[in-house]
């Protein structure tokens, strides 16, 4: 049995944060990019043939992932492949996941013809979780169903619109399925992690795209299930799952890492999370700094006050600056005496001395990459 991985990277739009990057390359948790969870989950489950599907703005993603060395994926055979729209003959951007998989058929059909028991694991990069995919694969095989979907309880709340939500009966079997719908709290949310038989996936994709069906959740999973053609197995995930599908969620989830149980589960619940190595010095805490309840990456120079915040690599907080409930990305500088509350500073931002930026929990101020305020 061979397992092939597919990671989708343009699955959520987070305003300014995805202006020039994929959701996979959004910085998260101080020293990571969102795709690190999908890559680490796959790598730690022994998946050695992974395709990364990107529709647009994938330069930062390619730069981050490189040849996959940090994830142990720089291999002679298999390893990583970028599946971008212009990599094949098609000149159109993808309308949906099925279409993008269709266009990446060469990747799926690479080398020999698939064996009957070969599997494909598909994940997104907007839902972050430290998942043991080996256990998911084992559960999929044991279920005898055609598709396994990993779900999380407690996400559906009657307010959040979900890509795919499922209602289970008392035996854990699927009783209802909805797509792009504000489901009530008796539904479980799909974490956009699927396990499928490779040969069947190839056939389904070809059949559906031929009929102008290109939506993975709607046409393949829900459609197949409703038609009685596809048996769907549910794998309930018990750990922490962070759905970063809006700026508000991204902001709240980033700050939730300060909580010990969230932090320990997401970073090291089942295996380490790997990321691109940067050779930065340790963080230096100066004579006058006051750091409380925060997550601090390497290479920072801290002289001011930081509370309930996440600081990325090589951030400078000058004397008498006050930073509260903020996310400050790589290489940004907060000048002397500046005051920041509920702010996301993208990479390389300079906050001039004395500046004052006050956002709110629901609407944090986002300062674009490289700007000076």
């Amino acid at each position, binding site marked *: 049995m061979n397992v092939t991985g597919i990671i989708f990277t343009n699955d959520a739009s987070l305003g300014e944060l995805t202006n020039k990057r994929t959701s996979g390359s959004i910085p998260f*948790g*101080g*020293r990571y990019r969102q795709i690190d969870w999908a890559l680490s989950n796959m790598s730690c489950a022994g998946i050695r043939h992974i395709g990364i599907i990107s529709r647009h703005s994938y330069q930062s993603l390619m730069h981050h992932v490189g040849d996959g*060395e940090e994830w142990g994926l720089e291999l002679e055979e298999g390893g990583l492949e970028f599946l971008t729209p212009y990599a094949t003959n098609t000149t159109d951007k993808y309308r949906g996941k099925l279409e993008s998989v269709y266009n990446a058929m060469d990747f799926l059909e690479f080398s020999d013809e698939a064996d009957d028991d070969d599997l494909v694991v598909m994940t997104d990069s907007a839902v972050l979780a430290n998942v043991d995919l080996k256990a998911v694969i084992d559960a999929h095989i044991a279920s005898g169903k055609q598709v396994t979907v990993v779900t999380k309880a407690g996400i559906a709340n009657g307010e959040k619109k979900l890509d795919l939500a499922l209602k289970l009966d008392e035996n854990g079997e699927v009783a209802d399925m909805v797509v792009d719908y504000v489901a009530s709290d008796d539904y479980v949310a799909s974490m956009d992690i699927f396990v499928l038989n490779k040969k069947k996936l190839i056939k389904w994709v070809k059949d559906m795209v031929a009929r102008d069906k290109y939506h993975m959740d709607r046409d393949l999973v829900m459609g197949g299930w409703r038609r009685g053609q596809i048996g769907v197995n549910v794998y309930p995930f018990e750990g922490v799952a962070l759905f970063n599908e809006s700026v508000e969620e991204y902001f709240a989830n980033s700050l939730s890492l*300060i909580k*010990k149980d969230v*932090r320990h589960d997401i*970073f*090291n619940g089942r295996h*380490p*999370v*790997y*990321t691109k*190595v940067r*050779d930065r*010095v*340790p*963080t*230096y*805490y*100066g*004579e006058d*700094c*006051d*750091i*409380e*309840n*925060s*997550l*601090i*990456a*390497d290479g920072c120079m801290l002289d001011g006050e930081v*509370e309930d915040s*996440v*600081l990325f690599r090589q951030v400078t907080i000058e004397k008498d600056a006050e930073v509260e409930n903020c996310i400050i990305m790589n290489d940004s500088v907060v000048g002397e005496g500046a005051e920041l509350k509920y702010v996301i500073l993208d990479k390389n931002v300079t906050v001039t001395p004395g500046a004052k930026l006050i956002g709110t929990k629901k609407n944090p101020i986002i300062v674009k990459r490289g700007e000076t305020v």
Partner: protein
Amino acid sequence: MYFQKKRVIAMLLAGGQGSRLHVLTRKTAKPAVPFGGKYRIIDFPLSNCVNSGIDTVGILTQYQPLELNEYIGNGQPWGLNKTHSCAQVLPPYERNDKKSGWFEGTANAIYKNIDFVDRFDPDYVVILSGDHIYKMDYNAMVEYHVAHNAACTIAVRNVPLAEASRFGILNTNPDNSIYEFEEKPAKPKSTNASMGIYCFSWSVLREALIADEEDPNSSKDFGKNIIPNLLNAGHKMMAYNFDGYWKDVGTIDSLWEANMETLGKNPEFDLRGGKRETIYARNSALPSSYIDEDAKIVNSFVAEGCEVYGKVLHSVISVGCTIGEDAVVEDSVVMPGVVIESGAIVRHAILGEDSKVCKNAVVGGAFAEDEKKKISVTSKGAVVEANTVLLPGDML
């Protein structure tokens, strides 16, 4: 097999025991001893090589090489794993000629690896050691060597006269050429101390190594034999002045001091630095550090993967450490993976890798002025039990 000719290669002597580091090198070679929060001593010469454009480094190991070999691996963290670059670990080995067996001295170690050096057909060989903390452009030294048409160039630094008798002292002419070398002289004539960094023209060194092996009384050492022999034979030897930060971290005191000298706004030794000054290290896959609301950190380095709940003052905290609630760490070097439990006090100490200070234990003290100099040390994996005391200057 094809080996690209190299103008310069480096040979790094990393086989010494480092016995003056006592418990810290009980199970580890000195070059593998952690430094500065996320580095190991060997990262400094290795990174200097890379930053100087030297992409071929032979690393001679002998004493407790397991951890060191694992750390160096294929040289990937320093970018020395490419098609035409290498970081090759060279342990002693058996063969059916004189080059068989243990390294019997610094010169003997290179002699036994003449075949390795010959593969690259280098014009110059830079000899380095694995126990110094410094940033240096070796290429500038090689260019100096070439410009002066020397057979051997030795990096020197000015030391206080009172300390000069601890070093190999080079007495030079006004043009910086060396006329005399004295190993640890009782009455030093100058303060030009050898830093143990040599640049040789390979043809000259190769010949000198072979000749030295023929001498039954030789201790097969660069300082004691090779350098004096070359001088006596009339070769041109130059002193290369280096006035940047440099520290031999061969003792507990100097290792502690060097760590402390990385701290401050304008530290004596700046771990940061410009483009060609980055120190590379093998990175661990650890998340950012968590600093609790009751934590207090002043004038300290804290590397990644730490959880700090207590107080850290003027200290270096390495990757993956936990500092518990109400614990106090002051004037200390805390190596990777150390756990300091709640209420413990650590002052003026070096805590070895993965060691543990249990609840309310006390390590070191430095309460009275005369105790200031005594550093307490825990070895790798040692446990200071709850409510016990490790006295100033004691080792566990």
